[in-house]
Each structure stands twice: as structure tokens, then as C-alpha cells.
């Protein structure tokens, strides 16, 4: 049996083990589930080592960039969590991550999630040279964004005009949630089709 054929059989049997959960929880599924957790953990460990630790820490220390001793020390502190007596040292490493992450997020989120979104929403509604439906769509997006934001504004009671605008916001949000749901379901179904195709084509050669 060639290695490729062995790989196909292995993948097919593991796929069937996982699909067996559709009947009920059983030892085959439990086996595949535990194997998946172990293999995933191993994969991400190797991925982190070769893509994060090696290029950012080991290579820099080998090049005598001694300022990288600080993240090395903090990383060691992170592992101190395993020793209860000195576990509190891991807070220093967590504080570094939380602090730099928070500082970075203030800038990036303000730019990408706020200013860029405003910029994309406030487009010209001048119909000159544009098809009518493009202008209408831009207007609808503007109405949807403003009313959606009004719905999320809880410092004022949703009554009167505010309530009416918030109601329009709810309509847009419901359509958005429905569309996101449908999109997610279809993504899962395309994965399912992929697995079925693998079983029927690559493994059994029926299609």
C-alpha cells in the first residue's frame, strides 16, 4: 500500500469516525475527537515555534539583539503559571500582552472599525453619471448604518423619533443577522459537500 493510499484510508476512516456522532456519541467519535485535540495542539505548537518563536526570538538572540531578552524573561514568567508558588509572576507577562494589545487596539479599531467605516458610508449621493440603483444602494446603506447606530445608543430612551429610527435599525440588523446565518450555513454545507466528495471520489471512487 502506497503512502498516499494509506493517507486516503486514514483520512476516510477518521472522517467516518467523526460522522458517527450523527447517530449518537460513541467510542469511535471519542477516539477521533481526542486524536483531533492532540493533533491540533501539536500542530499549533509547531506552527507557533517556527513562525513566532524562532524568527522573533531565537533568530534575534542569535544575532546578539539583547533587547529580546525582555520578551524571553516575560515568556519564562508566563510558564511560571505551572508552579503555584511563583504563579503570580505570569501576571507581568499577561500585563505586557494586555497593555500593548490595548494600546494597539485603540489605534487600529479607531482607524479600521470607526473612521474607515464612516468614510465608506458617507459617499456622495450625487446621481450625476451614476446608475440610479448605485445611488439608492448607497442611500440605503447610509440609512441602515445610522439607524443601526441609533438602536445601539442606549443613553436615550427608544421612544418618539428615536424609537422610530431604532425600529428601522432593527429591521436592517435582522436582515443582517439572517444573511450572516444563511452565509454561515452555506459555508458549513460546502464543507460537508467537500467531505462527501472526498469519501465518494477520493476514497471509494464512485463519482
Amino acid at each position, binding site marked *: 500500500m502506497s503512502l498516499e493510499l494509506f493517507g486516503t484510508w486514514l483520512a476516510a476512516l477518521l472522517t467516518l469516525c467523526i460522522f458517527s456522532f450523527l447517530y449518537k456519541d460513541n467510542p469511535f467519535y471519542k477516539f477521533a475527537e*481526542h486524536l483531533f485535540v492532540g493533533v491540533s495542539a501539536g500542530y499549533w505548537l*509547531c506552527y507557533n515555534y517556527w513562525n513566532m518563536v524562532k524568527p*522573533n526570538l531565537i533568530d534575534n538572540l542569535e544575532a546578539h539583539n539583547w533587547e529580546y531578552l525582555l520578551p524571553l524573561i516575560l515568556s519564562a514568567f508566563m510558564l511560571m503559571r505551572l508552579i503555584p508558588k511563583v504563579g503570580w509572576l505570569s501576571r507581568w507577562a499577561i*500585563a505586557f500582552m494586555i497593555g*500593548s494589545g*490595548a494600546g494597539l487596539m485603540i489605534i487600529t479599531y479607531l482607524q479600521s472599525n470607526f473612521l474607515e467605516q464612516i468614510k465608506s458610508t458617507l459617499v456622495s449621493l450625487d446621481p450625476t453619471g451614476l446608475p440610479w440603483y448605485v445611488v439608492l444602494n448607497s442611500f440605503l446603506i447610509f440609512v441602515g448604518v445610522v439607524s443601526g*447606530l441609533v438602536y445601539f445608543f442606549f443613553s436615550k430612551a427608544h421612544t418618539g423619533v428615536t424609537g422610530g429610527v431604532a425600529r428601522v435599525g432593527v429591521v436592517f440588523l435582522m436582515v443582517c443577522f439572517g444573511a450572516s446565518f444563511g452565509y454561515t*450555513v452555506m459555508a458549513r454545507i460546502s464543507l460537508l459537500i467537500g467531505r462527501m466528495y472526498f469519501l465518494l471520489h477520493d476514497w471509494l471512487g464512485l463519482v
Partner: protein
Amino acid sequence: MRREIPLIITFVCGITMIVQFFIPHEPFGSMKSYFQQSYMIIAAFAMILGICNLTKLHVNKIRYKRPHWGYSIVLLAGLAGMTIPGLFVGAIKEGGIFDFLFKNVHVPMQSTMFSLLAFFVASASYRAFRARTLDAALLLVAGFIVMLGRAPIGDAMTSFLPEGGQMSDVANWIMAVPNTAGQRAIMMGAGLGVVATSLRVILGIERSYLGGD
């Protein structure tokens, strides 16, 4: 000091990251990449910590013969089977053991796990989606149109309609207009929320990440 020093570290790191954006000159200019690299290194070690914890948990399960301890052997074998070739034997080169396990064990199991959700989402939505109110009906109809519009049957059902009015066109319009509007409103709200929370963290008002005692 066990709480004060972490708060100082958080404040200094947070302020430095903000300042480097407004003053892109030395020494702040090079600090961004240094902090980002350090962040990645520590985050990688946080993951290593998690894997050490997982190993410890399952080793104890095997040692004390707790219920289903046999599966812990499978988990540890999978972990070792992936880690040893990935770190030591031939690393992660194409055609190696790591590559074989990744292609024939990790990827098939991952996509099968996610594809299982198709069944559970379908059965959950069958029970949850009742068009009792206008809002629920909107959600249901939008989801239904997007699902049909992404499958060939959707266009086949509406083939009598002119181009631009078929199911896939309507689904694309829903994704491009009302969905974009809703997503933007959510993103802007979430963005402001992240900024507010980050400020609270940097200023030491929010301290829950430090844990107890």
C-alpha cells in the same frame, strides 16, 4: 506589589503603543515592531503554557485511571506524533511526517468537525426559526434567500424572472446592502466599545485580567 507592577507594565505598554502612532520618530518609531514581536513571542508561550496544562491534565487522568483515561493516551499520542516530527524530525517540510499528518489527519478531521455543524445548525434553526414576529420573519426570509441564492436550485426556481431579479442576484443584494449596513453599525459600535475598554484597561480601571488574590 503583585498587583501594582502589572498595572504599571500595562500602563507603560499601552501608552507607548499609542504614542508611537502619533510620534513616528525614534525611539518610538522602532518600538511598535519591538512591542509587536514581543507580543507574538509571549502569546506563543501562552499557547505553550496551555499545551503544558493539557498534557498535565491528561497525564494525571492516565495516572489515576480516571473514567475514559484510554482516550487520554490517544490525545497524548496525537500531540507527540505531531510535535516530535514538527520540531525535531525533518521539521515542517513538505513530504515529511508532519506534512503527512497535517494533510491526512488534521485537515480532514477539522473540516469534518466543522461540516458536522451543518446538521446541528439545520436542526437548531428548524426549532428556533418560527416567524412569530416581523423581526423573526425578516431574519428567516433573509437567511432563506441567502441560502437558496448560494445554491443552483435558487436560480433554477427563479429562472422565469429577468436577469438581475433571480435568487442569486437578490442574495447578492442582501449581502451587499442591508447586510453591509448592519455589519457596519455593529463594527462601529464594537469599535467604540473596544476603544473604551482599552482605555479602561490602560488607566487601570479595568483589572479583571489580573485575576484573584
